[in-house]
């Protein structure tokens, strides 16, 4: 699923931009979380300063214990654990979004950086490129 290698030309003349992929949707109900991950993985080949933000229902993407057998969709949640291997290590999760949903860091399947709303807002504001799903 994540093996596409088209357009891997990374010779962009050394420009390094801050890219943030903003995830606000729950998994499986819509495809945005999955196709969002596909962009994130491709972006790793371009040697940019990449981060992901998980806000609102986007925090559900990281919930442990996903088991999709009965809905016959592919469980793509292990991919979040593979991001480290792509040097994508900045996974920011908004504290207020977690709390509103009764979740804690212990519920998440990967190590994240929890930011409160002010910190998250500041982090978003400093990006060069924000792509939202």
């Amino acid at each position, binding site marked *: 699923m994540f093996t596409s290698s088209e357009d891997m030309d990374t010779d962009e003349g050394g420009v390094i931009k801050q890219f943030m992929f903003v995830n606000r949707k729950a998994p*499986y*109900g819509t495809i945005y979380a999955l196709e969002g991950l596909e962009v994130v993985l491709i972006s790793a080949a371009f040697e940019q300063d990449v981060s992901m933000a998980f806000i609102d*229902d986007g925090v559900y993407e990281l919930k442990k*214990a*996903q088991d999709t057998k*009965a*809905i016959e969709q592919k469980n793509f949640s292990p991919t979040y654990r593979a991001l480290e291997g792509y040097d994508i290590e900045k996974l920011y999760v908004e504290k207020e979004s977690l709390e509103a949903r*009764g979740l804690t860091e212990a519920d998440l399947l990967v190590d994240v950086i929890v930011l409160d709303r002010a910190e998250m807002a500041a982090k978003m504001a400093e990006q060069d490129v924000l792509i939202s799903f």
Partner: protein
Amino acid sequence: MLHIVNKSPYERNSLESCLRLATNGSAVLLIEDGIYGATKGGSFEGKVQAAMAGVKIYVLGPDLSARGMADRVIDGVNVVDYGGFVDLVAEHSNCQSWL
């Protein structure tokens, strides 16, 4: 009457509108991203708890498990599979999907 809700109550107003317009004695089935409405600990739980005085709440197990929420179901909410979904449709004389 059977009400079907497939949206997260944190993202959309569907479940809130459904609960506002469901008559006493009707049933509400939560599917797809709607399953988050059947889970414990979040800020919407109180509204669902309050609604349970008048309506019966069901949640689709396959969608719960897919999202890793199978162990978070609010007490008193009934978990059903696709066969149970079909039974709910058959048992109620009409149904409305809150898209």
